[in-house]
């Protein structure tokens, strides 16, 4: 049996086979029983060398580091905002909310530290964001971003709903590293908990009965119109070609039941609302 026949045969029907997998481990995983049998037969030295060359970890790490630095950028933006709100200690913010916001701020600081450690461990350099680049008035559109309760809740909702979509969009890019992928997922769901909290606080304190913790269609729930990109694309009612608004499920519920990913460029554009001219993220 010639092992290389496998590769040759695969290549005949799939010329891009070498681009389809990203790690030697995953190749064996995909080959399933064949990989295991070959391993048992001590053949994988040659076999592995072929795949390792095609699917070496070098470029993979660079891609993961880039994703993690993107996530870190978002986390630094959010956590800086929450810190400044808590420092301002505005009288209009209820004490109970300040407790909740402190919990969120602490979680975000944990995310920052976790991402920094992962980036360093992978051989990368964690990004830093100078506070002087940031403008939480969003170019003067939000006069009192740190002390006006409605504004704080609105910005928190926008940041967290964006964060959920940002992590979701990057998850496939982390599949080559199980540990990093899982950590990102563990952050992703916490962002969703935060989003739900801000949304319920707005629902209950801002007379926004329809602003439930989940996103209905692409409704921005009374946020300023320039935040619409946070919600565009959330209105899907079909998933993987399966129509969801059936079996008595309304279109609204169908859209709520699935959150949607957001691409990196759109997330950066949203975050740039809070960066000064000449200091924008790229």
């Amino acid at each position: 049996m010639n092992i290389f026949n496998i590769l040759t045969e695969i290549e005949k029907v799939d010329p891009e086979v070498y681009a389809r997998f990203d790690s030697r481990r995953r190749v064996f995983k995909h080959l399933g029983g064949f990989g295991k049998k070959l391993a048992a037969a001590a053949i994988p030295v040659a076999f592995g060398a072929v795949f390792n060359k095609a699917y070496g970890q070098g470029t993979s790490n660079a891609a993961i580091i880039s994703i993690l630095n993107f996530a870190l950028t978002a986390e630094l933006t959010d956590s800086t905002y929450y810190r400044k709100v808590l420092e301002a200690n505005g009288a209009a913010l209820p004490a109970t909310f300040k407790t909740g916001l402190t919990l969120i701020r602490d979680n975000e600081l944990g995310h920052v530290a976790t991402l920094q450690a992962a980036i360093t461990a992978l051989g990368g350099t964690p990004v830093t964001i100078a506070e002087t680049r940031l403008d939480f008035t969003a170019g003067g559109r939000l006069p009192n971003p740190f002390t006006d309760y409605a504004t704080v809740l609105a910005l928190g909702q926008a940041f967290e709903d964006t964060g959920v979509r940002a992590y979701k969009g990057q998850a496939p890019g982390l599949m080559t590293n199980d540990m990093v992928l899982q950590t990102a997922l563990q952050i992703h769901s916490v962002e969703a908990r935060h989003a739900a909290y801000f949304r319920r606080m707005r629902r209950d304190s801002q007379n926004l009965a329809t602003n439930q913790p989940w996103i209905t269609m692409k409704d921005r729930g009374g946020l300023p119109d320039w935040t619409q990109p946070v919600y565009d694309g959330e209105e899907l009612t079909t998933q993987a070609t399966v129509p969801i608004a059936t079996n008595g499920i309304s279109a609204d519920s169908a859209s709520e039941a699935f959150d949607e990913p957001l691409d990196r460029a759109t997330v950066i554009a949203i975050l740039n609302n809070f960066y000064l001219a000449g200091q924008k993220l790229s």
Partner: protein
Amino acid sequence: MAKNTKSIPEQELLQGLKNPLNRRSFLQYTGAGVAASALLLAGCDDDDDITDTNTTGSVNLGTGDTGILNYAYALEQLEAAFYSMVVTHASFQSTFSNATERSVLMDIRDHEVAHREFFKSVLGNSAIPALTPNFSAVNFADRTSVLMTARTFEDLGVAAYNGAGKLLTSATNLTLAGKIVSVEARHAAEIREMVKVNTFAARGATPAIGQETIITGGTANGGLDMALLPSQVLPLAQPFIRETINASNLPTI
């Protein structure tokens, strides 16, 4: 070579998901290549000792991504059945006298039904059968009993999806799971606030399902939700399901 029937519905499933990069298409390609070159390995029935047929009272989730999707389908069946019981119970209006809370619970019921029906549809012939829930431990006329059970289900669901992501080989399936897990996390946060204010992401040294503390505390590695493997999740879900869930064929890495 006991049976090869499992791979056909799996391939159909993945075909349906239209993912150019997924494992199914690769398996299809390798299947073609292997057949063409007659590279059948004598010992390949190592992976064939999988039971396709479910013995009475036992449900086998299956293998690979299909197994993980069936695992999610089982959990969604449980959640959908639970919330359906909650909102159709005779005392729903009095147990949950607040209209917003009733609206929340009915929304969550709809989301969980949507998730259940989605998995049933996408799994097609590979789907496990409808499970029989066992909610004998829940007092549906008691707000606390309902909410504590809901909290457990939602936190467990989040941890299950978080821990299963790395077991999936298809990026399409990972994204689909990601679309659902954040909604489960939104549910968890809302239910937790209904139980006790500011517990939506309660931090602590030893977070656990069924406890108030659910997020890792501290700064280094802090702020993380739980991630549990099927072998950790199913013992917690099994008491609510009559059938025995067999997860022995699920991927473990």
